[in-house]
């Protein structure tokens, strides 16, 4: 039973279908994760000096609530395995809905559960990347902005944002690649992504070497594309 190249060519169409699904989940995960991450990351430092100056009155109380909610989200997601989150959302959450409401036949599609899981999971880690980059911005630059009389929103968009974003790119590259690879865990809820496709072909022809080698190379190609696009963005941003 030597290395059969034809095994690879025969399995390619199915593996491509899997890779397409992996890519689809990853892209939505990255885009959604960025939105969640920016909101939660800024939320964790709402009302602190990292975003200008401390608010007073009612805004002070509101920012405390925002900090706790964001912190709770980040710690809950970071503190539980992604595979448990996916299983909870797919298997347990419908039962929870059934238990507390009258809805009898509530269920979540496996792909929907996968997408939601990856979005919220990536979001929690990206939140910490955002927070870390924002608090690293030199406080003197915030003071320079504030002393011109601009609003907090303008300060965040025009001063803190661009400076922090450039520092986010390397750790974001890490997180995007991790999220892509994490999609392989959705095999447990039956999403037909790349790893699942490989597993199914393997189960019918037992050609482990050819199949897993091909699967590995396909992941490597996808992660390389991600890494290279981030390098490209990094290069395009002004050097400072």
């Amino acid at each position: 039973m030597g290395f059969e190249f034809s095994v690879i060519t025969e399995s390619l169409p199915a593996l491509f279908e899997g890779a397409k699904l992996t890519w689809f989940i990853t892209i939505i995960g990255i885009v959604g994760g960025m939105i969640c991450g920016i909101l939660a990351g800024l939320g964790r430092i709402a009302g602190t000096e990292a975003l200008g100056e401390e608010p007073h009155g009612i805004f002070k109380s509101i920012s405390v609530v925002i900090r706790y909610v964001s912190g709770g989200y980040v710690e809950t997601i970071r503190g539980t395995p992604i595979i448990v989150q996916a299983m909870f959302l797919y298997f347990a959450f419908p039962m929870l809905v059934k238990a507390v409401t009258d809805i009898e036949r509530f269920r979540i599609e496996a792909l929907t559960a996968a997408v939601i899981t990856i979005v919220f999971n990536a979001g929690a880690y990206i939140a910490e990347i955002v927070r870390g980059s924002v608090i690293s911005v030199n406080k003197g630059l915030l003071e320079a902005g504030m002393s011109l009389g601009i609003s907090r929103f303008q300060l965040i968009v025009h001063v803190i944002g661009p400076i922090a974003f450039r520092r986010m790119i390397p750790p974001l590259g890490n997180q995007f690649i991790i999220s892509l690879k994490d999609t392989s865990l959705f095999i447990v809820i039956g999403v037909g992504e790349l790893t699942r496709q490989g597993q199914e072909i393997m189960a019918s022809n037992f050609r482990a070497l050819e199949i897993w080698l091909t699967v590995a190379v396909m992941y490597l190609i996808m992660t390389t594309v991600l890494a290279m696009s981030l390098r490209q963005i990094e290069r395009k941003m002004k050097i400072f």
Partner: protein
Amino acid sequence: MSNIIELKNVCKSFGDTEVLHNIDLSIQEGEVVVVIGPSGSGKSTLIRCINCLEMISSGELVVDTVRIPEERGRVRQIRLEVGMVFQQFNLFPHMTAIGNVAFGPAKARKMGKTKAENIARELLDRVGLADFENKLPGQLSGGQQQRVAIARALAVSPKVLLFDEPTSALDPEMIGEVLDVMKSIAKDSGMTMVVVTHEMGFAAQVGDRLIFMDDGRIVEAGKPEEVMKNPKSERLKDFLGHVKHH
């Protein structure tokens, strides 16, 4: 002449440490006030309180009709009228020289891009940097960066300019170019200026009033030459002795 800045019985504490004790100070429109004093005397804190980068702990601050603490919500109004130049320049590193200067007019004063850039160009020319408008801060010398920072502060057309040790981070050969720009602003535009500095020559030449601070209090104040020639307190005599030797 009316007062544009008034501090009445102002105290400022950081935690348990009180760094300004019962400061009373009035500054008139067009006046150039130079603040000197040893390190830790509260001079930087004093001017940072004026544009509310530090919020006063007690007392009252009035800047161009805005009263603090009653009108805390109008801090931005104060900052539009009170520009600041920092020891470390603090230029926005991702913007060119003209981008830095045009930023205030465009965002804080909500002018169109062309109008803001015209103002910026004019100011860069005034500080002698017309040929450097497309340089990033990292490509400029310290003295050039500080001159861009002065142009940036001027660009929102404030009534008051605060200078927080503007030449202390500069190499000696660059101090002159920055002081020259400051002198020309003081003489030509009639701008109200509050300058924290160790440059006694500057104080003597353009200062209307010299304030000596020590340990969070205003110890002596008056015409710069008189204060420098006839220091009354031992602390000022001691301080002037140290400054003159450098």
